[in-house]
């Protein structure tokens, strides 16, 4: 940069927003899963090799083959790993400290990623059981699962 220009005032800057409400078509498999959420049911889908994928994807992640039949899975399951968010970001599902967790629901072979409202990090542990907490007004999308909560110890 030549001297002549370096005594410039700072460069101009301004905020700008990228905003749109996307109108997504979800396709047959995700569509059935979301439809079931309205009725407080959680569906998985079976791969050719028999694995039950939750959430159900249209294609087997390992082979690329189309997935097959739907099967209802449990509404509770085991935390396989988790992370504690002490300061939630503005668009996170919960606005108080919570855990992200991978949750393998009873009857599923893969884990669903969602939020766990455990209240305190000390109540989280890999292997713990959590149960779904349904949203009151369900619209057929992933937020119909408000979050998960620790299953009351028997």
């Amino acid at each position: 940069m030549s001297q002549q220009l370096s005594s410039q005032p700072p460069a101009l800057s301004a905020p700008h927003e990228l905003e749109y409400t996307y109108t997504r078509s979800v396709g047959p498999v995700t569509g059935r899963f979301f439809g079931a959420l309205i009725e407080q049911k959680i569906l998985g889908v079976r791969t050719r090799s028999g694995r039950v994928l939750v959430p159900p994807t249209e294609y087997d992640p390992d082979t690329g083959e189309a997935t097959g039949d739907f099967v209802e899975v449990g509404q509770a399951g085991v935390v396989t790993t988790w992370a504690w968010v002490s300061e939630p970001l503005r668009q996170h599902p919960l606005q108080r400290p919570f855990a992200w967790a991978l949750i393998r629901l009873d009857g599923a072979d893969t884990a669903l990623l969602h939020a766990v409202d455990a209240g305190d990090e000390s109540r989280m542990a890999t292997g713990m059981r959590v149960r779904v907490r349904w949203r009151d007004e369900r619209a057929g999308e992933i937020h119909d699962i408000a979050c998960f909560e620790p299953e009351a110890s028997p």
Partner: protein
Amino acid sequence: MREVAVVAFAQAPIVRRETERNEVEILLPVVRDAVERSGIPKSEIGFTVSGSCDYLAGQPFAFVMALDTIGAWPPVRESHVEMDGAWALYEAWVRLQHGDVDSALVYAFGKSSLGDVGEVLALQLDPYYLAPLWPDPVSLAALQARAWLEADGHSEREMAQVAARSRASARNNPNAQLAGDFDIDDLLAEPYLVSPLRRHDCPPISDGAAAVVLAAGDLARRVCQQPAWIRGIDHRIEAQALGARDLTVSSSTALAAEKAGVASGPVDIAELHAPFTHQELILRGALGLDGETQVNPSGGALAAHPLMVAGLTRIGEAAQRIMDGVAGRAVAHATSGPCLQQNLVCVLEAE
């Protein structure tokens, strides 16, 4: 395979927030520096390919501006990948195999400070099941870190050691953003950012640019005293669903390493694109690196992490050490996507 080598590497000083210059003004001196170091006249460069991502600037076609920096006149053979510049280098390496073109300019630029990286990167995720929950990259990496900690009896201390070593190495890298001496116990006394990750386990937010010039066969020997020959280069991807993957290993890195021939010789240095501390340790395992290999002498992504640039920079840093005669054989790695979903491995050797 036609012999292709890195013959020049240049990068911009990596900063937290470049408020003065726009992407073109950052990139221009870097591209000119790389071309000048290559000894190949700009007009003779046979192919140009770049890596960047519109979503970093929040502008469609943000990469078109960058064309102004290479003086694309008369018209040039040019392409662009919406990925890290390391994949642009791969495309250039492939193009040079055809034999009709002997040199290529590869550049990458990225200002991660312009938007909220935590939100922008969430758009890489499944648009129906995951993106609407807006999980940020630190949260996803934390899920991986805990799985790794609990799987093989690893410790947060090992992670702090990676952070301390990286930022100490960065002291002799003038372009690094974070450098310094840190005491392991002081680091471990810090609060979690997203448990089990602390601030030192995470990459900085950075603005930057980098450029590499490749040349084939005799041209490389003519213009560069000690070319860094690309002996092997390969990249692989895994399915994205985190719940369907084994997060404690990097199978795609291991496969790419096998195809690139990492194990066929000693590895003096390895530049690994590990944005998070535990990921470097996962990658070491996947690449089969032992104690003999010096990892991330440049400080790596923990010292400077401009998105879409940091992967190309790993290849540049590894190649530079071969061109400087400091290393005889080096491995460079780049990653893309959440939790090491997609990985590129490049083996570089002196003559």
